[in-house]
């Protein structure tokens, strides 16, 4: 490698050469050739080895020298890991890139499973100490979930979205609504009521369950479409084809398609966000539990 790259000292002026960079995208998991994965793995192995090679009296727990060491290490790591929430709000902060910071966050966070569990010596009970452990595990496992989602969902999100943006999706539905509204102006009351059903009783997002499942059952638009289609059919059979109503059916169909796309987008976005609704509040609760855990140990020293 050294023979290929020109010695940097000789560079002069600005932008003589592009910074060496892999052509392929390097995600946060294998940032810098998975540097933090290696650090985390080595740390985990070291902790397991020390744990296995020591035999404290009466047994491993948070009260042995190893227990206090692992506890201190774990607490410092937890505080640092939670500072990602601060770091990501400071754009362009130095010296480490946000990607590097995230990579360390993920990998060191995984090693906390071993550090935290061995700190406790596997002892669990109904107390503040095990609560801290439980919250830590919830945070870490929700983090795993988030990593999985970040690896799988963006591709589906972009496939579903095609070339349009979020606001274009909404605008499409609104435009159809306006078209429906004006197209329905000449209609008789009963037909107009169906269009109103589509306009008034069709929430796009809905509850958490509806967002995640994308299942809105028969919303106003679906019911209106079914009823309008039935009427169009009936009038055609009666030999009184109703062009205006047919136009309404066409618009309702287009709205249904636009809604479906938006809702798929919403479902993916909801999944992408939901883990953070576990991860972040559980992290803050964990920090609180950590304070209670450490203080109570010294209070009842």
């Amino acid at each position, binding site marked *: 490698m050294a023979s290929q790259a020109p010695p940097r000292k000789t560079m002069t002026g600005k932008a003589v050469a592009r910074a060496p960079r892999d052509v392929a995208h390097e995600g946060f998991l294998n940032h810098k050739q998975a540097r933090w994965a290696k650090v985390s793995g080595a740390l985990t192995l070291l902790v397991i080895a020390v744990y296995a090679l020591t035999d404290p*009296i*009466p*047994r491993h*727990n948070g*009260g042995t*020298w190893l227990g206090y060491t692992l506890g201190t290490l774990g607490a410092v790591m937890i505080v640092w890991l939670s500072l990602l929430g601060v770091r990501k709000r400071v754009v362009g902060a130095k010296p480490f890139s946000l990607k590097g910071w995230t990579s360390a966050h993920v990998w060191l966070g995984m090693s906390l499973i071993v550090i935290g569990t061995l700190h406790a010596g596997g*002892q669990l*009970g*109904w*107390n*503040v100490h095990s*609560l801290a452990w439980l919250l830590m595990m919830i945070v870490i496992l929700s983090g795993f979930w988030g990593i999985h989602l970040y690896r799988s969902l963006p591709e589906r999100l972009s496939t579903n979205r095609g070339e349009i943006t*979020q*606001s274009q999706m*909404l605008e499409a539905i*609104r435009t159809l*609504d*306006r078209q429906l*509204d004006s197209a*329905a*102006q*000449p*209609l*008789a*009351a009963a037909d*107009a009521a169906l*269009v*109103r059903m589509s*306009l008034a009783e069709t929430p*796009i*997002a*809905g*509850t*958490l369950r509806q*967002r995640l499942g994308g299942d809105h059952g028969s919303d106003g638009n679906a019911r209106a479409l079914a009823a309008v289609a039935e009427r169009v059919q009936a009038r055609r059979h009666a030999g009184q084809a109703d062009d205006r109503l047919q136009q309404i059916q066409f618009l309702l169909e287009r709205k249904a398609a636009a809604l479906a796309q*938006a809702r798929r*987008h*919403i479902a993916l*976005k*909801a999944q992408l966000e*939901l883990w*953070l*609704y576990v991860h*972040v*509040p*559980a992290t*803050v*609760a964990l*920090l*609180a539990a950590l*304070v*209670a*855990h450490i*203080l*109570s*140990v*010294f*209070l*009842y*020293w």
Partner: protein
Amino acid sequence: MGFVIRQIASRADGSDIVRTRTLARAEISVGRGTDCDLQLADLAVMLRHARIAITSPGRVSVEAVGGVPVELGGTFVTRADLALADTPAIDIGPFRLSLAAGADGAVAITAERVVPPIDAAQAGAEAGIFSLAGALPTKRRMAWIGAAVVLIGMLLLPLLHVLGEDRASLPQAMLAEARRPATPGQAFGDGRLQLPKPRPATESGFAPDEVWSSGPLSNAHASLANNCGACHSQAFVSVTDSACQACHMPDALPDHALPARMAKGRVAAGGIAGAAHRAFNLPEGRCASCHKEHEGEATVLTVAASFCTDCHASLNRRLPDTPAANVPDWAQHPDFRATLVATPSLQQPVFTRAALNGAKEHSGLIYPHALHQSASNAVANMAQKQGLPTGADGALPCRACHVPDAAGQRFQPIAMETHCGACHDLAFARDGGTLRTLPHGKPEQVAGIIRDFWASRTARADVQIFPRRTPGLFSAAPAPVAGRADAAVVQVFTGRAVGGKGICSDCHVVTNTGSASITHRFAIAPVTLNNHYLPQGRFPHGQHKSFNGKTGEAACLSCHQGARTSKAATDVLVPGVANCRQCHGAPVTSLLAAAPRASDSCDSCHAYHDGAPLPAGHRSTVQPAATEAGR
């Protein structure tokens, strides 16, 4: 006459567009249809919804014509007459028509949308639609709530409980139990120390500070589960010995040694560990340094063997005057130094500790084991005649004299009457129906009884004098001559009259004091029988009844090997430490066994809280052996 219609529409930026038209008619139509005079473009409005007509100056009528009523001040009507002076308002769908008297007798109608259109309701809601913010409380709020719940439940409430709590009261039952002296020599190693049954926690119920417990308490302390303050008496101060000794009185549970010597003998933690102990206020040598609580049912009593050798491996380096030899581990455990009777005494016998090799004990008794354990001599013969228990070979078994104590640890004290009396009978005459016996241990009384008996005997024909049946002196002595009472006394004590031994001198060293008084002429040397040769350890004989497949007598003899050949009571028949190592700490003999054949932990034999053995010159709290002197 006519209508002035002002239609107000909202721009996207919120400002209004007002369009005014004047219709010179007495009646106008209102509806969604494009042919209406007042068009209201909303699907909630009928194509032709209503007619408004001027009925007289200042009065109008409104009539719903589309089959859907209009709303007037909250009520739905199909027809109504209205006075313009009242400035009535008619609601049709999302629109409100406000009527008033205009200039020149015209009717002014202001039509305004009062319910926003549907798509406008969704405008600006993009964030709520595409992010979960629209469906869940914000992450920040959830975080605050979660943190508050944790801090209140796990820190604040327990803290308030601690601050509001009075001095902890201790359960009476526990106090009483802790104040009982510990059974000496208990240890887990031999399985004799039983776990107490956990007592339920006291009735005060759940205490908020229980959530700070790092694990279940041991069975012994289980009833303190909701009484944290019983031990954790001061915040930020590690549990002190005074908390333990509130129940465990030093009298009942003596310390291992004097605290000052303990502190001197301990290897002080150095380096990081020592610095950490000092920094976090964890003094060493506390009860809790060894006895770790909150580790489950038994662990408060569990300490490791290395705990002993921490100090004892090199104890003499820190305590040069210690009488205890260094013990780095079981394999290097020094041979036993038995506690032996040096000077027998009825009042204050003197004991000494001596190496087993070549040790001699001076109990003051004459007792050859070999003679009494023979299978073929007069002793064996007599034992059979007396109906004493004998072994298969006809010899007296060990248990004839060495009767196990109730605990199965050691043996009941040897008593002359019980263990020797069957053969060494002190009866000397049948006086009428009464058997006359000499009192053991009272030489003056014996001399007096014999003298008086002989002095009076000539006048008594009904007294039958036994030929002495003493073993070894069977019928050898002729009956003493009447009137020679003093000679009879001499014979009892020394046997000198017949050239052999007397009754007493069979077993005792008898000295002639030369006193003129016959009752004080003979003195018996005091006897002290040792009943615990290794008082710093414990050897539960009851658990060692078999050895290498041998049981009973053979098992005894496999350790006490000299018992059948020893010709003098000065022989010390206690086996050495090498004997123990045949099993304890010995390597496994079968492939399947994982552990040594017997435990090699210190607490198999030694206890910690048995009291302090002290070097010479210190007041000894150890009573090595009860004395059986003078028997």
